[in-house]
């Protein structure tokens, strides 16, 4: 049972939610782009620089040991968060994009060649399109697209029948950032595995909002970002099964990722270090683990339940607005509402909402192919986090009515 007190207490931990924008209390509905940060995550960054700052995996001195311990404890925390079977399978990256590029680079070097095929879906974010286009360009493999219908639901049946010996990888988003669709990744993975095909899941929009269990999903790779789940920017995870991470070539060369170096030959370090070249984002990773503890203290199930309430309320409330057109009406949805107001450009609506202190995203949301599919220039997207409220959704609805009056 989620009470008013719970919500007030959650909100009180986010200093930015107490601020004003353009003279109005901030209504922050751009959580799918980046979430806000609770005080304890902010504090952990300060704590790192005041008490721990030192390079990791290098020094014998006490501070370096402490920083390394905190960094490696963060790996354990993140492994626990997604139920990874061993912490060595959790690679720290700059974010989802970096995680996907790591795999795409390795695949194009070692596992893709001319004549091969790989699949992504019609609703991918640019970061799960472009790295694969580049990988296919380098290797000569062909990139194929899983189609979707006009509710934003993937048409998996025909695609599953086309999988075969030529298929080398499926890279698919768990939850669509622009439509909110939750994809049946577990079913896709099971079918792909029955044909020996590995699957990478882009979990950027899933990890903050629902229980992710990489063992239950049985995915070969799972990628997500810290900054969308209350952690600092520049943090992310690439989870991979050990067998894959061991045979995947390293992405970048540098310190920490080596075992021995000579001018004739370098042998690489074991996982996870093989994929963590150079000094990592130490304070970011430590703060990332603080964000995980923050989520665990509330409970990801509670967060999920609260966001489902907000989505249901927003769907009902916004549907009362005359001339609203929802984009993305799949049955299984995360707390994202994408829409258009008849006769107005999303950009105009976004500008006016901003004047009212309401932060939404407008535009193509880095999913231009999705916008092309619906033949629209973009959408207005409100994406919720558990700290949002029904009152804020009411303000959005009023703001949209006002924008409509001004624009039409």
């Amino acid at each position: 049972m989620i009470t008013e007190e719970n919500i007030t207490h959650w909100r009180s931990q986010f200093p930015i939610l107490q601020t004003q924008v353009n003279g109005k209390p901030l209504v922050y509905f751009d959580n799918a782009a980046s979430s806000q940060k609770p005080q304890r995550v902010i504090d952990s960054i300060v704590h790192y620089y005041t008490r721990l700052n030192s390079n990791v995996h290098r020094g014998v001195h006490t501070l370096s040991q402490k920083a390394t311990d905190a960094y490696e404890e963060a790996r354990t925390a993140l492994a626990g968060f997604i139920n990874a079977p061993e912490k060595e399978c959790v690679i720290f990256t700059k974010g989802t994009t970096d995680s996907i590029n790591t795999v795409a680079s390795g695949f194009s070097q070692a596992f893709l060649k001319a004549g091969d095929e790989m699949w992504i879906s019609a609703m991918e974010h640019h970061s799960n399109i472009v790295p694969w286009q580049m990988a296919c360009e380098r290797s000569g493999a062909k990139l194929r697209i899983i189609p979707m219908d006009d509710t934003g639901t993937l048409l998996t049946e025909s695609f599953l029948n086309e999988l075969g010996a030529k298929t080398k990888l499926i890279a698919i988003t768990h939850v669509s950032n622009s439509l909110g669709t939750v994809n049946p990744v577990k079913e896709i993975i099971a079918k792909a595995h029955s044909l020996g095909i590995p699957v990478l899941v882009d979990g950027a929009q899933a990890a903050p909002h629902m229980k992710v269990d990489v063992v239950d999903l049985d995915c070969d790779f799972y990628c997500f970002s810290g900054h969308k789940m209350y952690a600092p920017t520049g943090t992310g995870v690439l989870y991979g099964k050990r067998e894959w991470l061991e045979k995947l070539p390293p992405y970048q060369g540098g310190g920490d990722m080596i075992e021995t170096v000579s001018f004739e030959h370098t042998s690489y370090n074991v996982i996870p270090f093989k994929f963590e070249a150079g000094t990592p984002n130490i304070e970011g990773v430590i703060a990332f683990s603080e964000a995980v503890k923050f989520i665990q203290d509330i409970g990801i199930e509670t967060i999920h339940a609260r966001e489902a309430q907000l989505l249901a309320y927003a769907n009902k409330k916004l549907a009362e607005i005359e001339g609203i057109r929802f984009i993305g009406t799949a049955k299984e949805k995360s707390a994202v509402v994408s829409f258009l107001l008849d006769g107005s450009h999303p950009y105009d609506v976004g500008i006016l909402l901003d004047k009212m202190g309401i932060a939404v995203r407008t535009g193509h949301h880095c999913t231009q192919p999705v916008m092309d599919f619906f033949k629209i220039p973009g959408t207005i997207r409100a994406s919720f986090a558990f700290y949002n409220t029904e009152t804020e959704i009411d303000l959005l609805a009023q703001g949209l009515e006002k924008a409509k009056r001004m624009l039409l």
Partner: protein
Amino acid sequence: MSSIAELENEIREDFSLFEDWEERYNYIIDLGKDLPLIESSKKTEERIIKGCQSRVWLNAELREGKVYFTADSDAVITKGIIALLIRVLSGHKAEEIARAELHFIDDIGLKEHLSPTRSNGLVSMINYMKNYAARYAESNA
């Protein structure tokens, strides 16, 4: 015809009458709705100023040593701001346009539209107008 500086001042005066953002934006929206459209034959790919969120078409023409602009956009607020730029710049000598600093945009509270995060092509549009004029001014120098 008034100079660019005089036209900028006129706009400053118009905007000084508005009490809040709503009045300001209502005026811009009205300007956007009234902006005479660019001829549809000129709404070509080459005339699109690339912007992330709203599309802007801009055409520049020379007549008797003066530069005339017409434009359109799919977003009405963008269009309203274009109408202001056209009101200030169109019909002036190339050298004058190239030199114009356009401080009025800041002064009337529209600076935010020049920020790259807005990605509305407005900065590109101003650059395009001024570069076009500068190129012509140079070739005539």
